[in-house]
């Protein structure tokens, strides 16, 4: 339960920090308003969501054949495909490619899979310098932090904090809190790095099996630079990101972008199908695709939980989550915060390690309401809660690890009381007349809440007295 204690500590710290609450409330309100205005017609939203859900569910149900097709077509196009079972295997693959080119510098576009791999730390320990080029990622890298949101990694920082970071790290830069100037500074600081780095690394938003095409969604142009300037481009992706047809892309891109930021489209949609051909004058000479499993194939085996893999990483669930908007992303252990993280991370790491995450939800359903691919997040979180306390050798890793004797006993007692009217009456009598028994029973509940004082007469008594008939 060490992780539980850590998590609770993080939660307490986050809740106690007024800056986090203020910042996230304001940012999430804006993102929610933008998304709302991006889907003005509920009928169109329904149609688009049904189509996107159908496409992703179909992709996930046919993952093995689509991955084989993707591999075949990428290979035909000249893209080298690598398979990695674990994050460590993927890191090692990237390292081998780097070493093959005597490369000591890696310039990166935004990639949550590389965060999941812990790639920067892994390569740094082996003498390779990783530089994040997405502005948000660049800021959190300078701060020595991890992203607090999957779409906007530095959403927790304000302009003054960014200004201080720039000044501390680049003494030649004049201190300013002007966002336009700060952005210009970042452009200037990173410009030469794109020329110098021998290898660029990015994530993949969608990989199209029928054409062997890697698709990247972005606004800044750093993704395009990372995939154009260095001699070698390495793309890392979770195996669930494959889609079957090119015609699947327009509806998925449309619903992804509108759900994420409320834009109608991003500045760039970059579709890469091969390395530089002989007659071309720019582009990478080598393109590598690293397909990462890291627990996804296990998730895929469960015909209910495999819905988790439909996720297209828009972040709408976290923008609308009452828990995330109060905690921010750093209170969540694991790579991906918010509702989808609470669902995905324990399945990857095991319920014994991150089994507390599904409990960090009110199950209000806001996440599933806005999910563009119809993932029933609250239902699945409930399933994980149940798996956590039920030992099942065929279940998720760490199933049953959260079972506690006392808790199980309380629920048995609860079941007993509520299934036998006589016992129920006696229990209610004591609970209402002898309130002294309650504080100890409610111990953890009232640590940060006031104790509910039961009325002397309960609703049943009052109704009976008023002559309301039993139904």
């Amino acid at each position: 339960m060490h992780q539980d204690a850590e998590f609770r500590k993080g939660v307490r710290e986050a809740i106690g920090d007024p800056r986090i609450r203020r910042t996230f409330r304001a940012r999430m309100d804006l993102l929610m308003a933008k998304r709302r205005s991006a889907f003005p017609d509920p009928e169109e939203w329904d149609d688009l969501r049904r189509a996107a859900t159908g496409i992703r569910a179909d992709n996930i149900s046919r993952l093995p054949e689509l991955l084989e097709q993707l591999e075949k077509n990428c290979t035909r196009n000249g893209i080298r495909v690598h398979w990695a079972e674990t994050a460590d295997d993927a890191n090692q693959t990237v390292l081998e490619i780097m070493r093959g080119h005597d490369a000591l510098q890696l310039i990166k576009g935004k990639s949550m899979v590389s965060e999941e791999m812990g790639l920067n730390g892994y390569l740094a320990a082996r003498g390779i310098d990783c530089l994040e080029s997405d502005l948000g990622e660049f800021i959190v890298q300078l701060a020595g932090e991890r992203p607090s949101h999957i779409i906007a990694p530095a959403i927790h920082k304000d302009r003054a904090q960014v200004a201080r970071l720039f000044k501390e790290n680049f003494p030649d830069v004049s201190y300013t809190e002007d966002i336009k100037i700060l952005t210009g500074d970042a452009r200037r600081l990173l410009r030469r790095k794109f020329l110098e780095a021998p290898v660029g690394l990015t994530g993949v938003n969608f990989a199209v099996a029928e054409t062997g095409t890697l698709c990247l969604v972005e606004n800044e142009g750093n993704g395009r630079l990372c995939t154009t300037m260095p001699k070698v481009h390495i793309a890392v992706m979770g195996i669930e990101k494959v889609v079957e047809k090119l015609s699947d892309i327009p509806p998925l891109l449309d619903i992804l972008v509108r759900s994420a930021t409320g834009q109608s489209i991003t500045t760039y949609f970059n579709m890469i199908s091969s390395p530089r051909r002989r007659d071309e004058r720019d582009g990478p000479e080598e393109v590598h695709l690293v397909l990462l499993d890291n627990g996804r194939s296990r998730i895929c085996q469960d015909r209910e939980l495999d819905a988790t893999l439909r996720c297209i990483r828009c972040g709408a669930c976290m923008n609308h989550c009452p828990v995330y908007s109060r905690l921010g992303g750093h209170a969540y252990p694991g790579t991906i915060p918010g509702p989808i993280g609470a669902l995905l991370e324990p399945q990857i790491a095991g319920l014994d390690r991150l089994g507390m995450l599904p409990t960090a939800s009110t199950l209000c359903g806001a996440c599933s309401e806005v999910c563009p691919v119809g993932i029933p997040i609250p239902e699945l979180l409930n399933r994980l809660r149940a798996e956590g306390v039920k030992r099942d050798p065929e279940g998720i890793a760490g199933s049953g690890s959260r079972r506690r004797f006392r808790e199980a006993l309380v629920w048995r007692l609860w079941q007993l009381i509520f299934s036998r009217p006589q016992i129920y009456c006696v229990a209610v009598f004591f609970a209402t007349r002898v309130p002294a028994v309650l504080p100890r029973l409610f111990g953890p509940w009232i640590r940060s809440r006031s104790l509910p004082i039961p009325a002397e007469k309960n609703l049943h008594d009052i109704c009976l007295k008023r002559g309301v008939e039993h139904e």
Partner: protein
Amino acid sequence: MSEPRDRILARLRRKGKGRAGGIGRSGVALSNRCPKDLVGEFQRRAEAMHAQVYRVERSGWTHLLERLCREKAISNLLYGPDGPLGGEIREASRQRQGLPDLVGFVQEIEVCREQLFFEIEAAVTSVRAGVAATGTLILWPTPAEPRSMSLVPPIHFAVLDAGAIHSSFADVVEKKGWNRCMPTNALLISGPSKTADIEQTLTHGMHGPTELVILVLTQATI
């Protein structure tokens, strides 16, 4: 066959417990908004994405390019001499000398990248198609007009034929049979590069061009 590959695929093929999702492709026909005035819709959407859009008769586009270069005080312009615009640009420059210094993208990037990153002020490229629904340009960079032309210089002039504007991205993919002929790199570009990573404040010119200027070539009206 690599071993991890086989193990991953074997695990994926093993379907275990839980209820079947039962969700398949929906067959929902997505409304393909097809505005009557494709050019007007394209312009409205592209301008909403902060692109500058000019409609110009085909015969006069190099005159407009000259004027814009003058107004923006551009001293050099990168172009593709062997590309679809190369001849007209050279001819305009020769006849009127109203264009800034022309720089042809004729060498490999490794040779000209310093100049591309730190000297070139603007580039002009052709465009394969436009998308009215989102104000998007579609580029398939070629050896004559490499991909970095639309990415590195601070200003990108994009020359789009009005007849190449389609209603939606889905429409282009389907009608043009993209699934049979994908190029090395296909790009959708909507507006200049931007970021909102600091306090969600929109700022243009992050890593790509700060300005995207679209010249929509129309037929002469009689």
